[in-house]
Structure formats: C-alpha cells, structure tokens
C-alpha cells in the first residue's frame, strides 16, 4: 500500500548467502523443457524456467520470403523474438520494439554460427520465439527453446546452444538472475555456449563489472550452460523415447 515513489529495495542476499528465492549464488532456477510442443511447426519446444514461459517454433528450411534475401550458397537464419503483451505485469505494447529487434538480431547471429547453413542453399530457416511470461533471462530461455526446436526440426547444427545469464547481486556474482535481482542488481551478463567447442556465440553485458568479476561470471555461466545442456538433451530423448523403447521387442 502507498508504495508510489517509495523505494523498497528488497534484501537480495541473506547473511547466510541465500538469494531472494532461497537459491545459492551458483544455483539455477528450475528448468523444464518440452520438445515438440506444437503440431504444425517443423520443430518446436516449450520452456518453463523459473517464472519464465517461452514457446519456440521452427519452420524450414523453406522458400525465402522476400526473395531478395535469398543467398545462393546457404540458408539464411531468421529469428524473431517477441514478448506477449501479457508477459509482464505492466502491459507491454505489442509488436517489434528496439529491444526485441536487438535480441532477434543477436539470437539470429548466434544460431547462424552453429547451423550448417550451406546444406540448404537458397532457403530460409525461420525461428519464432514467443515469450508468454517474463521473469528476467528471457533471451536465454528463448535461445534454449529455439535450440531444442531446431534439433526437433532436424536442422543440422554443430551443437545445441545452452544459454544463461549471470549477474551481480548485492556485490556478489550470481547465476541465473530472477526479476528482482535483475531490476535491483548491479550487472547482467547473458551468454550462449557451444558445448562441443567451448566457444561463446553470444555475450552481452549491462551494468558494471571489474575484470576479475567478469572472469568469475564467465566461469559460472559456462558451468550453468553445461548443466542446462544436459536438460536440453534429455528433453529431446524424452520426445522420441516411446517409439525407440518399444522397437526392440517388436518381433516378440
């Protein structure tokens, strides 16, 4: 009540080292991935990550729509990141804004670097990321969802692309910020990792970190990504498991 203008900064880190939702500094929020959540898309995935809810759909490789974007030697990768009007507590104006354009661009470029695009010349691989409910780290949740959806669509890639944000909360480097930590924290560093090569294909930073802090953030983030990677692989196994398990007993 009467909170207008009042600056109530929540206690982000307890003296025992617990965060606002009880996690430790190096703990992820609960992550649930469902591969193949949509029927009409060539590939799809639904991700619930903490309070984030993100749906991703992949179409293609298919005919490039404005034709002039077509490339003669490879497929183009077009990602669209979009937040639903109801995804945040203050209604978001629907449609493209500067933030979503930027995120769409960096995600497209991250995926371009892992997809074997030369296998499908003159086509387009379209990735749609819809944020249904947002609670910080939606671009990372979007990348995770899109990546599983791309695998589900049978697109050849170097690897899946686990992604997570690391930030600075109450002076400490913390993994996978949630909304309050992002809003009142000092820095936010989203990243996406190619586990096969250990390369980062997306790295952004907002706020301030010292060089040693950034190094610590990267270390924590890479470890988080490796753990997310396992969840992603399991989601894909689960999607195709039924058929496979039954197959060997077929003749009996």
């Amino acid at each position, binding site marked *: 009540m009467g909170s207008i203008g009042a600056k109530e900064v929540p206690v982000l880190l307890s003296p025992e080292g617990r965060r606002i939702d009880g996690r430790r500094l190096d703990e992820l929020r609960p992550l649930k991935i469902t591969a193949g959540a949509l029927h009409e898309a060539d590939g799809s995935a639904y991700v619930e990550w903490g309070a984030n809810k993100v749906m991703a759909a992949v179409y293609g490789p298919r005919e490039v729509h404005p034709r002039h974007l077509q490339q003669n030697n490879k497929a183009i990768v077009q990602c669209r990141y979009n937040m639903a009007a109801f995804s945040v507590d203050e209604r978001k104006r629907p449609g493209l804004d500067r933030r979503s354009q930027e995120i769409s661009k960096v995600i497209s470029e991250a995926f371009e670097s892992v997809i074997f695009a030369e296998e499908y010349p003159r*086509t387009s691989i379209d990735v749609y990321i819809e944020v249904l409910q947002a609670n910080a780290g939606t671009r990372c949740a979007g990348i995770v969802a899109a990546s599983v959806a791309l695998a589900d669509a049978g697109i050849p890639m170097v690897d899946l692309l686990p992604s997570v944000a690391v930030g600075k909360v109450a002076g400490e480097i913390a993994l996978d910020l949630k909304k309050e930590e992002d809003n009142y924290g000092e820095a936010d560093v989203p990243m996406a990792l190619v586990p096969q090569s250990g390369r980062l294909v997306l790295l952004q930073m907002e706020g301030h970190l010292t060089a040693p802090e950034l190094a610590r953030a990267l270390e924590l983030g890479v470890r988080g990504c490796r753990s997310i990677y396992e969840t992603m692989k399991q989601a894909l196994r689960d999607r195709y498991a039924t058929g496979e398990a*039954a197959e060997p007993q077929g003749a009996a």
Partner: protein
Amino acid sequence: MRPGPGTYRVDGRIYASVLGLLQRRPPLVRIVPLSGRYIPKPRDVVVGTVTDVQGTFWLLDIGAPRWTPLHMTGTPWKIDFGETGQYLRVGDAVVVAVESIEATGRIGVTMLGEGLGKLEGGTIATISPAKVPRVIGRSGSMIRTITTLTGCKVVVGQNGRIWVDGSPEGIIRARECLRLIEEEGQRSGLTERVQAYLDSTQTPGSTHDHRSHVLGEIPHSVGGPREAEVILPPPADAAEPEGPAEGSEDDARPDGAPPDEY
C-alpha cells in the same frame, strides 16, 4: 571410421549434426535422422500441390526445403506457352516422380510415367516422411489393409503426403488409420491395431463395392480400372519397412553428443 551423413568431424572426433539414431556401418558412421523435412531422392514418387503457375512451368510444394519446378515438357499434355494455367492451377494436387537433384538444391520432377498425373478430388493427409515405410507396410501389406477395408483409393508419396479418395466415411476412417500410424508407428503390432480399428468401425456398405461407383479415375495416368489401387514407390524403397537394419541403432542422441571417438 569416416563421418557419414548427419555427422561432422573436428580434430579427429566425429559428432552428430542432427537428431537421430546412430548407425555404424564401416567405414562410415552416420546418423539416421528422426525428423526434418522431406529430402528428395531420385525415383521417389511424391504427392505435391501447385503453388505457382508460370509461362512454361508450375511450382510445386512437395514438402521439400524448396519449391519444385514442373516443366510443361514433363507432362503428358501438349501445351503452348502461357497455357499452363489451363491444365494445373494453384492448389491442384499431382503425383510426380523426382528425376534429379542439382548441387544448387534445385529439384527436377516429371509427370511422365506410370501412376503419375493430376489428382482429382480426394484429400491429402500429411505425415512425417520418416513414417512412410510404416504406411506402406511389408511389401504393401499395411496400405492394402487400409484400401480394402475402407474402399478408398490411396496414393502414398515418399514425401509423407498421402492422397485419399473414397466415400466420406471411408476417407475419415482411412485418415484415422494414418493418424494411428503417425502417432504409434514405432510401437509393435501396428497392423493389428489398424485392423482392429477398421473392424470396429466397419459399417455396412463401406467396403469394396463402394469403390466402383464412388471413385473417379486418375486422369491419363491410370488408364481404366487397375488391379492395385495403390501406387507404390520403386521397390528398392518399399523393401525395408521396418526402419534401420537390426542391431545397428544405438540410442537417440541429440545434436553434438559425440557418437564416437576416432
């Protein structure tokens, strides 16, 4: 071991590039994909729809990564320039055979050949191209079950597009069979379950005798009544309906999981 389809090699190690089943057939390691668009092979018979009409050719959607031109010289008709629209219009369904795949990804198809031509009436069901062998069954057993028990005419394209025509309830039952195969295609006893479904929905007069007066003919491809209602792809493809060779598959592995160390 060398990297085969669906894999790539970095620093002497072979990794999967697509989601699928691992198959080792020396000297190749390959991944048999579990999903993905239809990838055309020469001699495949496919069902497509017209998406664009040009002066000398049509563009077809056969579910492949790209639209496929069907040139007027590849049809049984004698057409003058600009008359293409009188023969096939946008939305029409056709059965064509894949002739060639160029390095650019361009696909060549023809309508000349037995069982090929325009499809009149009917509906098209879409299933995953990977499940097509299941729809056909061992030397055509599954598809024969469906056609005889529903009285429908069925054309199975290797691209997963399946054209069905018959009595209204026949079409519904045939499509339900296809849905069963799509969703439970990996489980055992599929033929029995499809058979059971068809028996349970059997209605008087929904079998054989329907065929003769309900169905139109497929123009200029099937001249007059034919023994088989099913247009099967070339035998080489129909011969292995049970998926990859036994014992050669390991587990489903997502992208990048190293299938093998080299």
